[in-house]
């Protein structure tokens, strides 16, 4: 039975404001919670847009010899879909949750640099707007304007002026540059906040695992995003000032771009997936009613992943001719990263083992995450082996693998996070019934799409093809994959409806609807501007447990 404990908290009643005042408040805010929510809303808007693009792509590929889209529009769609999902959905939404939760979880009142925080958000948002402004540039919206068509990694020399005349590539470059500035700013802020603003008693060994993971991820951002930013500047110099960094006709190197891009690109996967791990670390223990298994091992695994992820980028380049030494090193490094990742999976399972598991919607999504992340990891091992990669590179198998990670793991973790923290952010509970519909439909749609997508890949279907001939054995697979995509879209609509409905009509959540243990639940839902009237003081990793069970506090067991 959950307990009820009185604590020192503060509530505030706010007078109703005019719309203009509300807009002013949000535009000028430096409050980490509002900035976090803005990040999340902006990412959700782009998620809907990029999801719509995915649907168009799947309509085009559902049947052979289809001309639903023109080849040029198709190229632009998958470029914009990929770029948007990575830079304007994945990173903002994760930083949005980080922004919102980290100060609350460490008992602080705000981020270390609130104004830098606002700047980081706005410059990232303007990056996204600039990317989509490309649709109205050049030949205008009807002809898809100057939208980039070089895919999300913009391989050189395709991006050189001679192959990409006009401004489409520039839109891509500048939007990524702006987003990179914002991302780096937020990472600086997160590191400074976690290292310097923890409440009294919160040593690094009592830091909740979510901030721990954001700390490592932010360091990873410093190392990984800088080469990408450098590459954007170099390609801009190539295109505008006639340099030849990546111009192979003039002595430049296309491989150099590959290195620059993937030294960002693969750690980027971990930049995206590690916060998802963080969500699991908070959600699984609460819904298993057990403390996380192996806290020190989880921290060590997180740090290890941070380091190892920096040494795996070239497994994207096995077919570029790295040589035997390079192939062996990057194969081994990629496989080694499965060790700390495996530790995490085992620890989550051990946390659930023997627990009193309650399959509320957040836990359902967390369980889905566990299964699918395991599947994604296994297909990753296949691709990390150079000989297999030579066979499967640039096939739909690769598309299936990375969507398995990005959707099956990260998006499921994000959905879990939404269901878990939505009550804290809005003060209202999301509907469990709609949540379960959302979960089961999404699971069905996900597996129909991405499990089956591996098959045409193995059968040799290349990625990025506009259409294909009938009778190659890909037809029915593609039809089923597209059907799965639409089921996912329906599930997502249910999720959006649930959020909107709950915002106005949802059950009032109260401060701690899940009987949780971390500090964000020690304040009202939603929290007041100052988070805590008096900064808290803690003596264990589960401060709310201590408060609810003074007869059996965690601090007696930690030393």
């Amino acid at each position: 039975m959950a307990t009820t404990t009185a604590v020192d908290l503060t509530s505030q009643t706010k007078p109703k404001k005019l719309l203009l005042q509300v807009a002013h408040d949000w535009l000028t805010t430096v409050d980490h919670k509002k900035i976090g929510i803005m990040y999340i809303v902006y990412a959700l808007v782009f998620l809907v847009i990029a999801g719509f693009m995915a649907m168009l792509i799947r309509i085009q590929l559902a049947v052979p010899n289809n001309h639903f889209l023109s080849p040029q529009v198709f190229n632009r769609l998958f470029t914009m879909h990929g770029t948007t999902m990575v830079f304007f959905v994945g990173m903002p939404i994760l930083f949005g949750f980080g922004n919102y939760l980290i100060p609350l979880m460490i008992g602080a009142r705000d981020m270390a640099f609130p104004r830098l925080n606002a700047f980081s958000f706005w410059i990232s948002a303007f990056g996204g707007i600039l990317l989509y402004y490309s649709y109205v540039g050049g030949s205008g919206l009807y002809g898809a304007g100057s939208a980039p068509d070089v895919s999300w990694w913009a391989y050189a020399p395709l991006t050189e002026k001679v192959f990409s005349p006009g401004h489409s590539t520039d839109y891509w470059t500048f939007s990524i540059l702006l987003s990179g500035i914002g991302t780096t700013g937020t990472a600086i802020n997160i590191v400074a906040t976690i290292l310097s603003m923890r409440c009294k008693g919160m040593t690094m060994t009592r830091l909740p695992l979510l901030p721990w993971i954001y700390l490592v991820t932010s360091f990873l951002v410093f190392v990984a995003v800088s080469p990408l930013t450098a590459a954007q500047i170099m390609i801009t110099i190539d295109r505008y000032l006639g340099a030849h960094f990546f111009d192979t006709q003039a002595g430049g190197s296309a491989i150099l771009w590959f290195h620059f891009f993937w030294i960002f690109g693969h750690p980027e996967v971990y930049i995206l997936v590690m916060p998802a791990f963080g969500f699991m670390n908070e959600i699984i223990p609460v819904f298993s009613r057990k403390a996380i298994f192996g806290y020190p091992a989880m921290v060590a695994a997180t740090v290890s992943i941070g380091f190892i992820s920096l040494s795996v980028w070239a497994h994207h380049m096995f077919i570029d001719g790295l040589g035997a030494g390079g192939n062996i090193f990057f194969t081994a490094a990629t496989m080694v990263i499965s060790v700390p990742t495996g530790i995490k999976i085992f620890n989550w399972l051990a946390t659930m083992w023997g627990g009193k598991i309650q399959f509320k919607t957040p836990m359902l999504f967390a369980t889905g995450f566990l299964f699918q992340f395991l599947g994604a990891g296994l297909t990753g091992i296949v691709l990390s082996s150079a000989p297999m990669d030579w066979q499967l590179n640039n096939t739909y198998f690769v598309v299936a693998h990375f969507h398995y990670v990005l959707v099956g793991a990260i998006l499921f973790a994000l959905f879990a996070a939404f269901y878990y923290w939505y009550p804290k952010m809005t003060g209202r509970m999301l509907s469990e019934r709609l949540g379960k519909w959302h979960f089961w439909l999404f699971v069905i749609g996900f597996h129909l799409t991405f499990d089956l997508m591996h098959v045409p890949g193995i059968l040799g279907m290349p990625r990025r093809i506009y259409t294909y001939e009938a009778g190659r054995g890909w037809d029915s697979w593609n039809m089923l994959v597209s059907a799965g995509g639409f089921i996912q879209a329906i599930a997502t609509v249910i999720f959006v409806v649930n959020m909107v409905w709950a915002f106005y009509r949802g059950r009032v959540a109260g401060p701690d609807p899940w009987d949780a243990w971390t500090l964000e639940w020690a304040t009202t839902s939603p929290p007041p501007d100052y988070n805590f009237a008096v900064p808290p003081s803690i003596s264990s990793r589960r401060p709310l447990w201590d408060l609810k069970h003074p007869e059996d506090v965690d601090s007696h067991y930690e030393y």
Partner: protein
Amino acid sequence: MSERAAMAHNDGTGHAESEGFVQLPAPTIWPLILALGVSLSLAGLVTHWAITVLGVCLVLPAIVGWFVQIFPHERHEPVAVSTQIVPISTEWIVHVRPQPEIEPSAATTGRRQVLPLESYSLFVGVKGGIAGGIAMTVPAAIFGLLKYHSVWYPINLLAAGGFVSWASESDAFLAQFHLYGLLAGFAIHAFSSVLVGLLYGAILPMFPRRPILTAGFIAPLFWTGLLYTSLGILSPILDARINWLWFIVSQFAFGLVAGFVVNLQVRVRTPQFRALPFAVRAGLHTDAPRVDESLGDKNK
């Protein structure tokens, strides 16, 4: 208010509650303007130069405005705090499963579950591995004798995994005695036996009900399945020549003997049983009493 005191402390600035206000960074439009200015400066390169000029015009005042916000003193705004007692409440009911009745002990009377209560020492696994490794050689030798009329064939085959030059050698060559083959085969076999023995020592306490079934049959089947799928990568030479029927018989022999030896040993109480802290540091506890049924039976 006592709980309040336990939870909270003065943050040292002295303005938290005593004045009824909290000082927070003042809202400002300048970060937004600066971001817009920087974005427009770049956007001008793909649209029109006038946009870049507009961007630069926004960047300069934004920098000055931001500077004024934080120098000489960071601008704050007071936010009123009305302190009151708010209960941390939850409507969430956690269903507790019926618990087996067991004899009270230090581990079961508390709120927390500590697992495992007992385990084997590290060397028990090593002992089991050595015993199992010796036992495994018997069916292997019988197989060598029956099929190749030599007890050396299995060990040479094992050693061939480490000698690439032996890949093309005939069965007759592998049936002969080779000192290097014996040493290499012994090293590989000893290493893997001890390693698997350690694994047995670690996992057997988790399956206390039918240790012989677990150790003697189920674990070897899993182990063989794993090897069956991966041996082609680990040792193609071994994979090409291995006889899986005899291999699994050897594995059963290993499992039965190793499991038997391990189960003969006395279990020791884990450090977390003796002094709970390590258990909690490792996260091995729950929030309500629950006891492993089998351990409960043993305690009886």
